């Protein structure tokens, strides 16, 4: 188990440095920062001074190492819009995003898991078909369409809920509900197919054949095995808690990280975009690492199998 865990952690570190490297490459590809910041008409001395001040006249690998160094010291530049530290600008939006994504995550799991398990256990019944039809809608209706339709019904027509902003908890209801519905559809579908696959396994037949009550077969044998693929998708959702709300935040004018990202991209506020990109990368890697370690804990087969496969 220790060897498994160490391998996973090493891999997570590799992925993190890969993300940082990609950020560096994209940053350099985006053009000469001196021209972007000073404008093409600035005098040559200003360019020279700027390049020297930011170390842009040094070899690329020195810049690359310096970039790594700066990131691990939390020095990620300033927002071009208000000159504050980009880290600070992003940091103050994170709680607002979490305020809607965490309840939405609970909603997704609380609806999606039971719906998927129920559908699998009652395969090909009317309720299964209903759940699956709803789930296909969840997959194919874009979140902005669902959000706008909900806003039209509950805010414009009925006037029960506000359609945008973040002043009271009522403002959070529609965004949470929009994300929850769509996520629940995804989880329900994953859970259903995972359960169906497990239910077709010989050990389920064996458990039934040895006389276990069906309820015990499901609880003791089917559910734990079906949990593994479901864990992956939930882990992905946990990892995208910070950035999973880009579109929904924009629909409901919720001032979280997602909306900040959209305005930063529109204004090409690169420092802010970079902080969000790195932040999302780190949280995703962390969530994946936790899921991987949980896997090894839940399913001893994976520990040995993955080591043999050398991945």
């Amino acid at each position, binding site marked *: 188990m220790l060897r498994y865990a160490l391998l996973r952690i090493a891999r997570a570190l590799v992925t993190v440095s890969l993300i940082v490297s990609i950020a560096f490459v994209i*940053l350099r590809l985006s053009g000469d920062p001196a021209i972007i910041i000073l404008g093409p008409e600035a005098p040559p001395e200003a360019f020279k001074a700027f390049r020297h001040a930011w170390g842009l006249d040094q070899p690329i690998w020195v810049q690359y190492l310096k970039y790594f160094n700066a990131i691990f010291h939390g020095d990620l530049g300033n927002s071009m819009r208000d000159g504050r530290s980009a880290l600070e600008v992003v940091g103050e939006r994170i709680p607002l995003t979490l305020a809607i994504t965490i309840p939405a995550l609970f909603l997704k799991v609380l609806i999606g898991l039971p719906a998927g398990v129920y559908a699998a256990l009652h395969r090909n019944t009317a309720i299964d078909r209903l759940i699956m039809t709803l789930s296909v809608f969840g997959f194919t209706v*874009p979140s902005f369409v669902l959000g*706008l339709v909900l806003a039209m019904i509950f805010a414009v027509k009925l006037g029960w809920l506000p359609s945008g902003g973040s002043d009271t908890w009522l403002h959070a209801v529609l965004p949470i509900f929009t994300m929850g519905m769509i996520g629940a559809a995804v989880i329900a579908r994953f859970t259903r197919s995972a359960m169906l696959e497990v239910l077709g396994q010989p050990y389920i037949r064996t458990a039934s054949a040895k006389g276990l009550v069906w309820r015990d077969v499901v609880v003791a044998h089917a559910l734990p095995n079906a949990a593994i693929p479901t864990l992956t998708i939930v882990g992905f959702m946990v990892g995208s808690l910070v950035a999973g709300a880009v*579109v929904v935040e924009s629909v409901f004018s919720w001032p979280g990280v997602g909306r900040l990202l959209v305005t930063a991209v529109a204004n090409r506020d690169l420092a802010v*975009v970079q902080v969000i990109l790195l932040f999302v990368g780190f949280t995703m890697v962390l969530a994946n690492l936790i899921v991987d370690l949980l896997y090894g804990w839940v399913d001893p087969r994976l520990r040995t199998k993955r080591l043999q496969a050398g991945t």
Partner: protein
Amino acid sequence: MTIDSGNLNPTTQASRPSGGSFFTSKGRYRAFFETWPPIVLIALFFIGLAIFVVATAPLIAPYDFMAMDLRDRLTPPALFGGTWAHPLGTDELGRDLLSRLIISIRVSMMIAFLSTLIAGTLGITLGFLAAYFRGRVEQLIMMLIDAQASMPFMIIALAVLAFLGNSLVLFIVLMGFYGWERIARIARGLAIAATEQGYATSVRDLGASPMRIYGRHILPNIASTLIVSMTLNFPEVILLESGLSFLGLGVQPPMTSLGNMVGYGRDYIQSAPWIMLVPSAAIVLTTLSISIVGDWMRDRFDPTLR
């Protein structure tokens, strides 16, 4: 608590010829609808309609999609108090919504088609490379696949658009990076399985080059699975594209796409909801139809992908 046998082996039901077994002979219509479920037929009809619109867009659009008519602003659709001059109504600048919808469907479908083609080519190439070289190359490709799969693509796309700016070509290429990792994973797995089969070994022993083995022999044999997974990728690209265009960061005006239309329509959600509802319905119908057909193809041709 019964476990039906179809559960264990889905092929038996899907691959049975229509008409059922000889002792439960069914009516001709029933057999037909079991092979072609009505929902699939409806979905195929909508896909056909969409393809027709894509092919003939400028010809069937009643107006120029950019033509403004300020006297005819915000007219509702014909069935909701408007006139048949503008069957789906007009927007805030008096532009005909039907014409804009037709052009938007064309733009969105073309982007999704080209991007899926790019993703398919990239995925199949990398998957085959991994299957052919194994070892280090395979590990590198698997690492790239994992890295791509572990980031929400929306964030990557937004970051690239922020750093590199936006143009239609860049946007299509960017969308082409969506979903390649799933196709690569499938292509690799199938190619590895195929190389161990008789036919691949035979042509190799006959002295065929790797290009020939993979291109002429393995690819056609695993194509159906790959086409199914590309079909399932297609609606997701439409959703991604329309999401970015909705945010104002995808297709740029004066070009229009479905997401774009929804984005502009949301400002009129109170006074003229049809501006937003018309393209929304088009997105949902298109993605829903393609998903239904994709799922149906998967169940029919390739139960292993389930």
